[in-house]
């Protein structure tokens, strides 16, 4: 059995989740705290991937990042970034596609913290950063865990977006979901079954480990 598609799937899910953590936390914090009139617009944009067919998202990414088009050729010429049919392109598309799965739990967690906690920290002279680091993040650990697990699992199961922007390049963009589809198309049910079983077993073990540790994580939050 070729392990490369499975390895690629987990690598994509891991990198995407890490990028989402870095981007999703400030965005969720802003959405939870802001009274800006832009909030409903940003919330709608973040939630779009929940309702949009993945192929639509993939199609527009393909158009935008194609070196034949202005933006894609600019990225290629100035930053040396080629996002179509490449692993960085998969990461970018996955980050957008899984954004609501990270942002929404974090936003809900932050919004549910009693305002008196933040007021209290503020009156103690703590900065926004100190309050976020010492009070807010430690007290939304269950939400943080939910965001990480959902983003990881959602990226692992991607098919439409990945196929549209990444194609099916072995070792580069051929993730497990696409490999399973290919094997079924070629009537190699045995290979498809092997990939599926490994994916099923590994993801179950990961989810079990994560949810099993939830009690510990929630203990001080």
């Amino acid at each position, binding site marked *: 059995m070729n392990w490369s598609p499975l390895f690629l799937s987990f690598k994509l899910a891991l990198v995407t989740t890490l990028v989402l953590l870095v981007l999703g936390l400030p965005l969720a914090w802003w959405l939870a705290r802001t009274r800006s009139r832009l909030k409903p617009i940003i919330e709608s944009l973040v939630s779009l991937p929940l309702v949009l067919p993945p192929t639509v998202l993939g199609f527009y990414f393909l158009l935008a990042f194609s070196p034949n088009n202005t933006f894609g050729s600019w990225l290629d010429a100035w930053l040396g970034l080629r996002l179509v049919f490449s692993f960085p392109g998969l990461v970018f598309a996955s980050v957008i596609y899984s954004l609501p799965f990270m942002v929404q739990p974090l936003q809900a967690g932050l919004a549910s913290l009693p305002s008196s906690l933040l*007021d*209290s920290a503020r*009156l*103690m002279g703590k900065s926004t950063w100190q309050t976020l680091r010492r009070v807010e993040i430690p*007290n939304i650990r269950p939400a943080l865990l939910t965001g990480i697990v959902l983003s990881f699992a959602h990226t692992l199961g991607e098919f439409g977006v990945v196929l549209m922007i990444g194609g099916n390049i072995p070792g580069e963009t051929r993730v497990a979901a696409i490999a399973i589809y290919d094997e079924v198309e070629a009537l190699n049910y045995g290979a498809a079954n092997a990939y599926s079983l490994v994916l099923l077993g590994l993801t179950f073990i990961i989810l079990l480990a994560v949810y099993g540790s939830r009690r510990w994580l929630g203990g001080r939050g």
Partner: protein
Amino acid sequence: MLKAKLQKSLSGPTGIFSLSVELSAHPGEILALYGPSGAGKTSVLRMMAGLLPPDEIDLYFRGQNWRYIPPSQRNIGFVFQDYALFPNMTVRENLDFASRPRALDQDQLLAAFELTALVNHLPAQLSGGQQQRVALARALVQGPDVLLLDEPLSALEHRLRVKLGNYLKQAVREYGITTILVSHDLGEVVRLADQVIRLEAGQVMATGTPEAVLLTDVTETGLPAEVLRVEGEQIVVRVGQSVLRVPTKEHAGQPGERIRLRLG
């Protein structure tokens, strides 16, 4: 000295009402805001701390206009009604987090509040009364210039309520902390406050010493008072050095008449 003049439109159970309060509090003294739930007491504290935007405000502390001082720089110790203890921190960590350069002796405070044995407990492992003690100790430990206390002893049993009330009063005097206490517990106000403002539906009904302000009705026995004037269903009376409004049910009184008022 802390001087404040605050106005804000608030919505309560009976609809929208206007909160209008003028107060001044001295270092080392406790000023109590006394009145029924929904009178606007907590809103006054929150406006003074800079946590609730007022419609109009004049707020000076030691001659400095607090309107332009951010809440984080006012050096206020605040006890919230829900205690606002950080759930992820132990009792000790909560106090450490609140400490400032001028902090009071933490171990002495912990001992006074009977919390020494609980320093490694998380708030979720404490009873309501214990949490309230931590909240009060945490507000004091930062060595505040101003203490704003929202029902700070309400969850305590009688013995601790008296003991910590006395400790609080002593600490406020010793460190010259300007303190505003919100309470609807008459006994607590009489025991702790140097001055009282009785607030009803956002309006100041009376200001003065606890004994004077908390007299609410005309009666056969009670403290002597002089009627200054009659305003609708209220009479304005002088009790000692304080002037207050008293709702009357039976006895309207005449200007100059000497009456007696019941405490309640």
